């Protein structure tokens, strides 16, 4: 006894952050070392103290907080209990290794120097892979991370723009002089000219009909990532009717958000009626959410079972209201695609842009430009 088990315990503690990272925690290596040092000072022998300290030190957000206890148990509780989850993970990894791209979770926690390189090449693979080919859960998680990054890039464009616009608060000289009369000509109260700033806004209309099922899943994630990073994003889903989903997307709990969306989308059946949905959007939502600095993005494959004339009319009306009207079609970067289906034919004359959106790379080429044009 004595030294040997003690050493093993310290070793175990030292590798805990790596275990958390493997389970999707965002903590970086250097921070983890610091955190462990702080936790050690509070005492490592008392299991609950260690748990509470590590929880405060290693968690960064709510979903990590909720998963922490389980992972802590898995890692620190006696061997026969913690080995099980680890093995299950390894088995998962072996299974999905059969799919292109392989699995990250299958790797051991030690070979960390290997990981970044693989991650980089994986990213390339993932961003050019058609969404419909990515059915694995772990792919979804990674795509989600990439989308968050895209959203963050977009935010930086916006922040840069705003900083430029904000520079130079302007003095309202006539007003100041008028006010200064009361104080004998000394401008004691300075008046400033109000800046009219209207933030650009994004409105997403996502087709969730059956033909879109492989894509809408990702588009909803995109909407969520955008809504988190940019503050003026309004999302709607349509099928045979339009429903606002911004609230559900804003749910602070990602799992609950997903569940809510699932429930919203589930209740519908029948074909896609894009024209009718857009007309409904124009009636019920557009006056409130679409203004002169709004870009409306329609994410749909254009397979419409309604009247083409209605679609055409609705788009024309929307076009008048919005600054930009963009149609993102997941199919249009397939070789040999031409917008020949009735829906797209009716839509084409009213669009500012028809852009491909079947994979992350094409979204990445459309969105930044769009945001730039809104300012």
């Amino acid at each position: 006894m004595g030294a040997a088990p003690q050493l093993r315990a310290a070793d175990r503690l030292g590798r805990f952050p790596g275990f958390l990272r493997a389970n999707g925690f965002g903590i970086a290596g250097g921070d983890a070392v610091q955190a462990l040092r702080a936790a050690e000072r509070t005492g490592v022998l008392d299991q609950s103290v260690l748990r509470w300290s590590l929880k405060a030190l290693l968690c960064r957000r709510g979903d990590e907080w909720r998963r922490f206890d389980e992972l802590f148990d898995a890692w620190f509780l006696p061997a026969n209990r913690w080995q099980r989850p680890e093995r299950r993970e390894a088995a998962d990894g072996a299974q999905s290794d059969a799919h292109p791209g392989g699995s990250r979770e299958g790797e051991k926690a030690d070979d960390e120097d290997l990981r970044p390189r693989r991650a980089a090449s994986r990213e390339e693979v993932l961003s050019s892979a058609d969404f419909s080919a990515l059915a694995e859960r772990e792919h979804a998680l990674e795509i989600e991370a990439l989308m968050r990054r895209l959203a963050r890039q977009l935010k930086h464009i916006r922040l840069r723009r705003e900083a430029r616009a904000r520079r130079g608060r302007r003095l309202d000289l006539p007003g100041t002089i008028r006010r200064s009369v009361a104080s004998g000509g000394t401008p004691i109260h300075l008046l400033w000219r109000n800046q009219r700033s209207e933030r650009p806004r994004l409105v997403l209309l996502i087709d969730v009909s059956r033909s879109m099922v492989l894509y809408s899943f990702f588009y909803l994630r995109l909407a969520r990532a955008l809504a988190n990073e940019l503050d003026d994003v309004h999302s709607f889903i349509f099928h045979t009717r339009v429903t606002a989903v911004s609230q559900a997307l804003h749910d602070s709990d990602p799992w609950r958000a997903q569940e809510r969306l699932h429930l919203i989308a589930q209740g519908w059946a029948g074909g896609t009626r894009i024209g009718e949905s857009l007309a409904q959007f124009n009636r019920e939502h557009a006056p409130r959410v679409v203004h002169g600095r709004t870009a409306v993005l329609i994410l749909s494959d254009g397979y419409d079972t309604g009247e083409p004339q209605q679609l055409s009319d609705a788009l024309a009306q929307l076009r008048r209201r919005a600054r930009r009207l963009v149609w993102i079609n997941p199919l249009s970067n397939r070789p040999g695609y031409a917008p020949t289906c009735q829906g797209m034919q009716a839509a084409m004359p009213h669009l500012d842009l028809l852009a491909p959106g079947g994979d992350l790379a094409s979204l990445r080429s459309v969105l930044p430009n769009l945001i730039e044009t809104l300012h």
Partner: protein
Amino acid sequence: MSSQRALDIAVLQRELARAGYIAEPSLAAALLLMRDLARPLLLEGDAGVGKTEVAKVLAEINRTRLIRLQCYEGLDAHAAMYEWNYQRQLLAIKLLEHDGQAGAKDLAQREQDIFSERYLLKRPLLEAISGERPPVLLIDEIDRADAAFEAYLLELLSDFQITIPELGTVRATSRPLVVITSNGTRELSDALRRRCLYQYIDYPDYEKELAIVRQKAPEAEAKLAQQIVAFVQGVRRMELQKKPGIAETLDWTAALLRMGISTIDINGAERIMDTLSALIKTRDDRVAFPREVVARLAAAS
């Protein structure tokens, strides 16, 4: 095995309870760490779970001041750190002009006078670092402020100094205990999260909420308090836009007492309906509460 730390945690929990806050041991542990490491504490959770309360009670048990910075969209450095008192400065200039003996004092001296601390308006952040005793600095709802402000705040939290171009650098004479709250309406930057200790505050469970109700509303009888808490916990399990927080529970308790309702049961559903406005705050949610639902919840509590 219980260590020294476990004892410390228990002591702090008791102190917090005496000051009127029922805390989980994990929160007490985080507060101790915050003191050890001098790092800010980031509190997240839905509105109404008592995040702001943590800062208040922390100030109380440390017998120190609470300085609060309420964030909002468009909050800028001037509103948060310092501003020059233009009016007084202009007045001083005017007075100097009238003084006649121009040149008696040299120009540089006079300019320095005008940009001295006398003409400086301290806003919460400057105030928090320039006191003698370290206060508790509460940065409330940081998710409402812009990302640019967040970056600015980060700088302050890492160096604990503020640079005022005309005056020089103001170093912290005391390091405040910083509590940051967020409702999660916007994703915070990783840099901020990295710098903070983290604590997610959930809605209280049955025992904790009961303890809170017993403490804050001692005039409610034990039986009623149990029923109230069971009812509210039931309401929280429903799909609502805005779930009732602890403040709502206490409001509702007060409303029930005021109406003279001493027990919650199926027969009183009608009267309970009348008090629901203290608990349910949006129209859509109200629609989800017809009589039958209230009766079912009342029967279950």
